[in-house]
């Protein structure tokens, strides 16, 4: 195929006909260049609008945001001058920011851990074979179609923190079954309330994790399992030693997708708690800083921290996939 394109390239460069014999080698090099240009120029032209737009509206904006975060423009009307990392440091001296970060960490740990565990378990159960599997698959996946706002509205009621005598939602269910000791304050608990806040998020995304794992389970060839069974492996052993090691890539993608969603969580919190310190997270703090306090530099600083936090999840993944692709390519 490369021969054919070279030939057609040479034909296209045929304009230099008379000089061709003398500069044979150079000419063919030139022709090869033309060929190369021909092969990538149309595709470059095709993608250049998106390169331009992404360059401007993603990377350009990231750059602008960073510049703002490094300035002291604390009111929209100020001009702002360069102050280095002052804003980044000052944030940690506040009462609100460390609390918001702490909340985000609690939320992320519970959400990522919970969704992975539940998703894996559901995937495992479906993989073991269950009657009406497509129905269950759809059922488990369905919550993903719901927006966080809608989920939040429902769970706001389910997790109503009213005490036993006025209980509604889940607390009322506990009271009804005489499980009063389970009645709790859910997300309004000062220290680990964010763990309760992660429940709706787990509910919403464990189906998605299940789908990932199920695909992973199905991707393991039956021959491998069979071979392990012949070697005397128990069914659990088959999963433990044969199937699970092959699921590492799936687990990693799940962690990255769930993890970065968790760090930038905003809508779920707003739907359940509105803007309250007890359920404060960096994204909500940024929103109130930008749109209520109108402090561009501080808002940009919080945005930068969010970007860094997400990058911590995404960059290792990118490096890993690139390495993998390269090693597979060779």
């Amino acid at each position, binding site marked *: 195929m490369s021969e054919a394109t070279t030939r057609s390239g040479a034909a296209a460069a045929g304009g230099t006909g008379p000089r061709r014999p003398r500069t044979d080698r150079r000419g063919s090099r030139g022709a090869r260049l033309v060929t190369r240009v021909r092969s990538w120029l149309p595709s470059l032209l095709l993608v250049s609008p998106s390169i331009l737009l992404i360059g401007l509206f993603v990377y350009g904006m990231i750059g602008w945001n960073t510049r703002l975060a490094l300035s002291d423009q604390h009111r929209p009307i100020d001009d702002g001058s360069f102050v280095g990392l002052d804003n980044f440091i000052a944030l940690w001296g506040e009462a609100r920011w460390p609390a918001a970060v702490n909340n985000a960490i609690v939320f992320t740990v519970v959400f990522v851990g919970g969704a992975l565990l539940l998703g894996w378990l559901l995937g495992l159960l479906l993989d073991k074979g269950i009657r009406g599997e497509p129905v269950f698959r759809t059922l488990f996946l369905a919550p993903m179609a719901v927006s966080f706002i809608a989920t939040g509205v429902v769970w706001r009621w389910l997790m109503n923190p*009213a005490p036993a*005598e006025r209980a509604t939602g889940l607390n009322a269910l506990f009271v009804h079954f005489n499980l009063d000791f389970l009645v709790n304050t859910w997300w309004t608990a000062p220290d680990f309330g964010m763990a309760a806040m992660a429940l709706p998020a787990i509910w919403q995304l464990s189906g998605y994790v299940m789908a990932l794992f199920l695909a992973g389970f199905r991707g393991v060839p039956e021959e491998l399992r069979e071979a392990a069974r012949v070697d005397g492996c128990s069914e659990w052993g088959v999963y433990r030693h044969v199937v699970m090691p092959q699921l590492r890539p799936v687990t990693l993608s799940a962690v990255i997708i769930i993890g970065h969603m968790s760090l930038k969580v905003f809508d779920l919190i707003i739907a359940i708690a509105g803007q309250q*310190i007890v359920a404060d997270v960096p994204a909500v703090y940024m929103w109130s800083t930008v*749109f*209520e*306090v109108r402090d561009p530099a501080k808002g940009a600083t919080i945005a930068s921290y969010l970007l860094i936090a997400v990058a911590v999840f995404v960059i290792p993944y990118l490096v890993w996939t690139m390495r993998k692709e390269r090693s597979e390519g060779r």
Partner: protein
Amino acid sequence: MRSRWRSVAAGALGLSLAVSACGGGGQDGGESEVEVFSWWTGGGEEAGLNALIERFETENPDVEFVNAAVAGGSGTNAQAVLEGRLQSQDPPDSFQGHAGAELQDYIEAGYLQPLDGFFDEQGLHEAFPDQLVEQISYEGSVYSVPVNIHRSNVLWYNPSVLEEAGVEGPPETLDELIEAMEAVETETDAIPMAVGAQWTVDHLLESVLLGSLGTEAYNALWEPGADWDTPEMAEALATFEEVMAHTQEESAAEDWQEAARRVSDGEAAFNIMGDWAAGYFDELGAIPEEDYAWAASPGTEGTYMWLSDSFTLPEGAPHEEHALSWLEIVASKEGQDTFNPLKGSIPARADAEPAHYADNPYLESALAEWQSGPELAGSFWHGVTVGNRWKNDVDTAVGLYLQNGDLDELNEALHQAAQTE
């Protein structure tokens, strides 16, 4: 091939020219219009605005009224849109804002024109209470025309719960309030004081501060650099803590409506909320003086802690002349008497016609009190006394207090917030 690219480029250019031409044409057609920006898109607010618009259109038949209301988030969405428009020098002809310090950012940015001339011309200094004009002035000038007055320091109570608890009438001082709440606690199943999410606690705090410190000391708190580190403040905050001890555990999961509804349903004895609650009680079909009743929040009798919606004249308003006709209607006695009964508030003018408000027992009593010339205090939470930054600092301090219950830390944070201004 080259010619094909050229034709594509030419086509694209032609298309963009056509599009921009359309845009230009639209603007040319807008010579005699007036664009008014607000966040009144539903309920009584929208009804009131529409009545004002109707009045404007009758008096200015040649001018097209463009209602640029933005819905959602009780104004936060609208304010974000407005900020963008002001920064890109594309202001509406007039926009709605809370009178007072909330407009300060805009004034300092040079987005607003002073309306002193307009006030003189329309005789508004006589129509509005002196203290009101003083409290909305910034460096001696006024920048907005208040169309209504809401009261923030209202104690809503359920008469039958009070009766059951053996409490006679609404408490008049904070000490009486605490006694009454204790009686409700021991004698009935009701919640003594219903509050909602964090912001309603901010709202409660301002009424407690006003009731404990008195009007003058309360107003002085909001001068930049004010001293909050005083024994009086410590006492006021201790009272605040006692009030908070009688609120329901699940408050964080409720908004003001749910807290107010608890009073009209008889689930709670008291709730301190602005007078827009009266409109909400009407919607619920609750009967005034029976399902709910009202009084000034304890210790604040004779003081009107106010907030107000107002309209402004932006710098560079495209149709300034028409904007002034709009403001004229907004400021007029007739305009205010049209708007307010629908919106569920009272006019900012002291010379309103009480007959328009006679249908509504709350508004009738509120107007009577307003016209009797009460002391005025600005509501901090609703943006009268402080700008957004200070307000947000107080909100954060209150939120942290709700989490950790550390009263000294709250006092310190409030003091700091005043110092950094």
